């Protein structure tokens, strides 16, 4: 229940930001010294939509790559590559997205593509790590029983491993998407739009009201997606685990 109240609050804040007649007096109150309050070049709705699409697309790509690598590395044939896969994705995450962006622009040009690459590099690790951890920590006797009763390797994966691992993988995907919403502000540096444009313009023109509206819109978006995905994760739990968690509010918070 609390989850839905949170989601509602973030949504209200975001929608209020889209209505200039509400936003302008708020900004005037907080930043009386600024000479322009509402970002004039693009509507906040358009920037937020761009931002959302960029983050979700990067999240989807990272989810597919992270899960795919995680599943591959835990198969019998993939095990020898487990350490390698882990190391490469850790390396990808330690590279600052801005640096990846700078390196990629000469090859991919300005716009959407280099930003997508930087976001995917930066956000694959949580999905991969959670996939690996979830599959590696499944109870041995359950897997032994699954094989022992005559499930093929694919049946064990689809009927036993993935359903049991999905809640933890879901957490990885949620973290990945939230990271992307925050990081997608660098999109402005490559001309890919998004809420980063408001923040960057505010910084260069020394207008804190612009920085503020970009930052708050992006934060509301992140929090809203977090709540939504948390609810979806809850839906992924097998019924039995869901019952347990319902009885334990500390876990569902």
């Amino acid at each position: 229940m609390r989850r839905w109240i949170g989601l509602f609050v973030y949504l209200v804040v975001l929608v209020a930001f889209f209505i200039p007649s509400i936003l302008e007096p708020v900004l005037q109150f907080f930043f009386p010294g600024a000479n322009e309050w509402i970002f004039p070049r693009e509507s906040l709705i358009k920037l937020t939509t761009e931002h959302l699409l960029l983050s979700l697309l990067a999240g989807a790509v990272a989810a597919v790559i992270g899960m795919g690598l995680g599943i591959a590395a835990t198969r019998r044939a993939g095990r020898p590559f487990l350490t390698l896969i882990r190391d490469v994705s850790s390396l990808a995450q330690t590279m600052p997205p801005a640096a990846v962006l700078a390196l990629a622009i000469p090859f991919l040009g300005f716009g959407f593509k280099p930003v997508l690459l930087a976001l995917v590099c930066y956000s694959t690790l949580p999905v991969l790590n959670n996939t690996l951890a979830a599959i590696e920590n499944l109870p041995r006797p359950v897997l032994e029983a699954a094989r022992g009763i005559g499930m093929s390797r694919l049946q064990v994966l689809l009927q036993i491993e993935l359903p049991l691992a999905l809640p933890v993988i879901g957490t990885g995907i949620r973290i990945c998407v939230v990271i992307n919403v925050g990081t997608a502000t660098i999109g402005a540096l490559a001309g890919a739009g998004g809420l980063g444009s408001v923040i960057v313009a505010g910084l260069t023109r020394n207008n804190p009201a612009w920085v503020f509206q970009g930052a708050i819109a992006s934060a509301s978006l992140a929090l809203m997606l977090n709540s939504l995905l948390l609810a979806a994760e809850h839906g992924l739990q097998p019924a039995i685990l869901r019952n347990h968690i319902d009885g334990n509010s500390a876990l569902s918070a």
Partner: protein
Amino acid sequence: MTLEWRNASKAYGKKRAVNDFSLEVPKGELLVLVGPSGCGKTTSLRMINRLVDPSSGKILVDGRDVSEIPVTELRRHIGYVIQQVGLFPHMNVAENIGAVPRLLKWNKVKIQARVRELLDLVGLPADDYSEAWPAHLSGGEAQRVGVARALAADPPILLMDEPFGAVDPLTREVLQREFLRIRSTLKKTVVFVTHDLDEAIRLGDCIAVMNGGRLVAAAAPGELLLNANPFIRDFTGEDRALRRLARLSVGDTIGQTTPIAPGGYGDSGTPTGLIRTDATLKEALSLMLEAGESSLNAVSPSGRHMGKLTMENLLENAAGIGVS
């Protein structure tokens, strides 16, 4: 179906978990593999359903080399029960039991009927348990479901790896008794692993004792307790004579001795103690010691007087002179 290990060995690096193991299990028999921890029981068992492939030698099921049978096909026709049960936590009891029939593509109605039948067989009322989650079952209940899951597709062979090893002693006895009951109705070839000699004696038609990856001896329980091999003598313990007595019932022993002539009990006088014919000779010995007498009157459960049991009967049976 018959089962056979033929010179089966399994090496892990330099270590030989199982070493040149050969043994045959006739159709419908229950073989118990027993021996100290790490002696290779589990490895030998898992060779049968190919969870372990032997490094050399082979396993035959009904004369067919298992390595030539497609592995999922083989496993779907061999029931498998393990100590930690391994129920699928995201499936309820009915879905767990129906797992193998689903793999065999039975239709829903047939599976549902089979699940109810099995819950009934293992003593769990279907109405209360079908929709229960594994996490909510006690150890004993979970293992009953484990046994039901293994029996679901009516496999001719059942493999059980210390199935009652993780439950408390009282529950273990109940499960053993029920297992014997179930087994008497479904004649399956069973290989049962345990490290508990009493369990082996109680359940086995044949007991194979292993040590260090090798087969030390295989014999019927009564014979095994008379075996002179030093390892077996050490393994069966100083109280093996009592274990022998525990296997025999008063009724069977009375049957072998001459029924008493009406009117007289012979030289030892009229015993005052009573023993039921369904009691074990071990219990009879205990009663004799307690009463300070060397004979007891055997009575049927309905109270009918069946004859006299003497200390001589016990001595003969403990030493293995009468039957094996």
